[in-house]
């Protein structure tokens, strides 16, 4: 029996899953009727009871976040969806919005109702033009159907939903940088406190939720808390999207209860690239410390991954087989962080600049063993010293790769070059391109 629990992805194989008709045919837009019949605080309580935790990486309980919004403060509240999915390896929100944008919109309506917001925003990264168009069309259709705008479903609740297209900065996935960007400024993280729940968008109480977290809400409303908590583990409830990529036979999205293991997911997805074996993998995108084949049975929930020394993150499982040079992979990620560092704080701005230079030398086999200690010490001076978590993400793959593959770094130095054939790790390797 398959361990999969398709909810968000249940309709993805239908050709018209992205249309409002398709969504309604599959039971869409029924949760809002139920939600709008409840008191807003009851909706918040229900989401709290469900134990739904943020799917954007940090895993903060969604209901609690909603509960932080001060009520009766006579201020405008804002509901913001973080759709700036940019982490290397992370690729769940984009297909979700492609295939089922209305489930997100329904979640936005429910969330906005719960926190008493009459304006909501979806901040989406600018590179995914096709997704932007689809979500924009979905919003227009939802307006036409009376799910957005004035007096939704005749319940007296008004909501304006605005799609905002970002300019393509990884840092804008950080919620306060996102808010700055949404306000029209350069995306750089804000000093906290005040937290967005107190002074977020335009200094008003604001909730910022990940796409998948918001999209999960309608099903919880429709099916109830018991249904949701029936899936997952003790502290990590429900289902989620696991994104498998890299050296795996059938890459893609796998929606399963929290706590599933990579071993199980590999079984479902046809295993590691045929003829090869697992070398290392990321549990939640490139910012999370890497795992090896020793971690195949780690339960992929918030606690399990954390106990094993990494983070569940965005559940972006990038699979690398034995043909991959770990130094090279880490260098590529580090170059990404250098490119995406916003420049606000010293450790990230200068640190990533330096890390790339050190790693380039190591990858080319230049340097000595003491450079590895320097690299680790450098990571120690960056990790936990920066303004936001971006730099932590930059240091994590380096520290973890040195933990598990120090010898491979040394092999580079002994060989005076990279001992791997980079072509061997490519997917077209078997076609003999060399």
């Amino acid at each position, binding site marked *: 029996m398959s361990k999969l629990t398709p909810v968000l992805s249940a309709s993805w194989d239908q050709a018209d899953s992205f249309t409002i008709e398709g969504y309604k045919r599959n039971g869409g837009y029924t949760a809002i009727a139920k939600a709008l019949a409840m008191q807003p605080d009851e909706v918040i309580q229900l989401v709290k009871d469900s134990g739904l935790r943020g799917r954007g990486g940090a895993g903060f309980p969604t209901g609690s976040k909603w509960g932080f919004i001060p009520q009766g403060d006579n201020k405008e509240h804002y509901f913001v969806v973080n759709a700036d999915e940019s982490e290397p390896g992370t690729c769940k929100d984009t297909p979700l919005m492609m295939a089922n944008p209305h489930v997100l919109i329904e979640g936005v309506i429910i969330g906005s109702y719960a926190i008493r917001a009459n304006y909501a925003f979806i901040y989406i990264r600018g590179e995914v033009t096709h997704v932007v168009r689809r979500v924009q069309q979905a919003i227009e259709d939802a307006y036409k159907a009376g799910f957005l705008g004035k007096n939704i479903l005749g319940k007296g609740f008004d909501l304006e939903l605005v799609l905002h297209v970002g300019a393509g*900065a990884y*840092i804008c996935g950080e919620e306060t940088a996102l808010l700055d960007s949404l306000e029209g400024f*350069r995306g750089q993280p804000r*000093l906290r406190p005040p937290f967005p729940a107190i002074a977020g968008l335009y*200094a008003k109480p604001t909730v910022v939720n990940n796409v998948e977290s918001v999209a999960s809400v309608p099903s919880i409303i429709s099916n109830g808390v018991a249904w949701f908590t029936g899936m997952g583990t003790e502290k990590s409830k429900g289902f989620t999207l696991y994104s498998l990529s890299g050296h795996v036979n059938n890459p893609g999205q796998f929606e399963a209860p929290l706590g599933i293991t990579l071993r199980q997911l590999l079984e479902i997805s046809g295993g590691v690239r045929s003829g090869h074996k697992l070398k290392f993998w990321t549990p939640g995108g490139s910012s999370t410390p890497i795992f090896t084949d020793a971690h195949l049975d780690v339960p992929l929930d918030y606690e399990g991954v954390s106990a094993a020394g990494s983070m569940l993150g965005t559940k972006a499982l990038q699979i690398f087989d034995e043909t991959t040079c770990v130094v090279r992979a880490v260098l590529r990620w580090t170059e990404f962080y*250098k*490119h*995406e*560092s*916003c*420049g*606000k*704080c*010293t*450790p990230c*701005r*200068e*640190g*990533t*600049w*330096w890390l790339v*230079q*050190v790693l380039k030398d190591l990858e080319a086999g230049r340097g000595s063993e003491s450079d590895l200690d*320097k690299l680790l010490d*450098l990571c*120690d*001076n*960056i990790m*936990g*010293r*920066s*303004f936001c978590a971006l730099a932590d993400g930059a240091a994590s793959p380096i520290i973890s790769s040195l933990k598990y593959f120090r010898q491979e770094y040394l092999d580079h130095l002994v060989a005076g070059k990279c001992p791997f054939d980079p072509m061997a790790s490519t997917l077209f390797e078997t076609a003999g391109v060399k």
Partner: protein
Amino acid sequence: MSIQELGTESQVQIEMITCVIDGFEITVPKGTLVIRAAEKLGIQIPRFCDHPLLAPAGACRQCLVDIEINGRAFPKPQASCTIPVENGMVVKTQLTSPVADKAQKGVMELLLINHPLDCPVCDKGGECPLQNQAMSNGRPESRFEGIKRTFEKPVPISSQVLLDRERCVLCARCTRFSEQIAGDPFITLNERGALQQVGIYEEEPFDSYYSGNTVQICPVGALTGTSYRFRARPFDLVSTDSACEHCASGCAMRTDVRRGKTLRRLAGEDADVNEEWNCDKGRWAFKYEVAKNRVKSPMVRDSNGQLQEVSWPEALAAAAEGLKNSRSGVLVGGRATIEDAYGYSKFARVALGTNNIDFRARRHSQEESEFLETTKLTATYKDIDNADHILLVNFEPEDESPIVFLRIYKQVHKRSIKVTTIAPLASRGSEKLKAKLIRTTAGDETQAITNISGLTGKSVILLGERISETEGALSAVVKLAADSGAKLGWVPRRAGERGAIAAGALPNLLPGNRSVSDPAARIDMATAWSIDSISNEPGMSTDEMVNSDLQALLIGGVDPMDISAEAKIKLSKKFIVSLEIRQSDITEIASVVLPVAAVVEKSGSFMDWQGKVRKFEAAIDQTLNRSDVRILSMLADEIGKPINLPTVKSARAELDSLGNWDGPSSDMKMRNPTAAQKVSGDEAVLISWRNLLDKGSLQDGEENLAGTARKSTIIISNSRAQTLNVRSGEHVRVSNNYGAITLPCQIGDIDESSVWLPRNSLNSQLIRNLSVVSNSVVKVTKA
């Protein structure tokens, strides 16, 4: 940004917080940042982005410390510049926490990897926070072996500020200053990552009157002043605390001198006045003192009409001969120190036996004389800090008293206080203050003043000196202040005016606010000066003296073109004794010229607009030039009626000993309001004020500063532009029977019957070109 409720500051008792830093307990007011609390214990946590007058940024990460609260430790070191102390907080700085120490050394190493380490040629070397803290909190040697980031250098972000991007540590002090303090967000950070850099907008230079402060607060050598660049090393400079001579804001300053020459001036610190800021004029306009046309020795005009250098005894004798036994008067000018003004005041009464003395080398009126004699001016910067409403009347603080502007802007930024301006147009300054504009034209301000309502005892009324140009306006203000209880402040442009009032350099006023018309006050002064009596005849004002048949005038630093277009010709018919630092229009017509010291060469004090005394010492001591009061004392001796003020100190002591008059004072005679002049067709009422940076003589010789002066334009209303069929930027001609000015026009929110020009800017010097400055009908036509 939280908006603080009005008036809560003083009423709420400040809660105190006790915490422990490096084992020492300390109690500080709630809201104090950890880095500041540590300072109170003498514990210096290194920092770059932190600045006590800017909102915390937490960007540089240099000030990381370990913190625990009630036994619960933060998992990682925290930026002490962003975290307020809490009860039960235990802080461990680099002194007691190896983690904090390593974190700080790590950040320092990272800051230096892309820094050029060109300290030997950098202006900042020797006074550089990066250099100093790299020594105190850095590793002895860098482990960086890679390639440093480089940029083209330097980039001029204005004519007076240069940017070396590779030196920048991106602390954002300059950009935050420009946004939060000056309200001129013309520099910003752009690009990202290690390529992030300070920059200006395309084709928009760093257009701010306060740009020099960014150079001063830059913790590295990234921002440098064009005029100072590569001129000196800090350790070769001798610094002297000084006071700014450019306006009545009263800035504390620091003057840095090397071998008898001023190399630069910086903003000094005075929390009650300029905090830590000053304006670019105060910072950079000091080249006038080394101008080629300095008067170096006394001169007497010979029988051929040529000035000849002579000895001091000869010059004093000639001056005394011309002054004594003649009907004479004294023009002090608005830039004298209090001590010098006192010297002039006493000289007029004792040596010349007259009340003919006036400091006003600008438009003035009898109403103003009476206002200055009778009105209590009580407003201070503190009152601005606590004000609920600020009313500006014919006063453009950004141009006419820039630190007053910063102080108001601070409260607008912090508390959104209400500002109302009675003015002919919405200037850039009043737009930044989000001021409510009550649009008037010259001559009809009185009605607007009378109509003001809603002022309270916490309100502040600030008057510009131009208010005297409208008859009746000062009377209306006095009534408004009395009725509302609002604090009144009068903010003249020049630094010496308040002091000159205190020193009695007015025809109706003796020192210490003693009225000439009050017999008791006259007796009081005559006794103090050991003379038989003081003339009971009220003296003449500046205009009256110039137009009178007085035979002789003693003139301090006055430009006749500030008085009127004909003043020079009229004065040339009199016997003139000129006390001057440079050759001028007055020395050209003077019979005797006596050189005096420039501000940096003497000690003394100015009185700022609040009435606060701003003392300063001579920054340059290798000079033979002496303060005016010393020369006046010698001249009085020569006349045979000594004033006995041989030094600045003795003048100061004598004035202090006089005290303020505590006898009865009279009320001001109220004037009736006037109406604005009627205009029709292509006529307009002329309105003007002086831009901060203009053709003022104290700005001579500083081209880089002049480069940031606002462009001269003629401001007309939209309807006039349509009538004239001109678009913004096209040339317009303003003319009268005397002359004409042609400049590009700017369409502004100005009264339709009015036209505005800068009073004394490039190609727009109104007295010179039109012979009038305001409240006069001119023709406006398409050029």
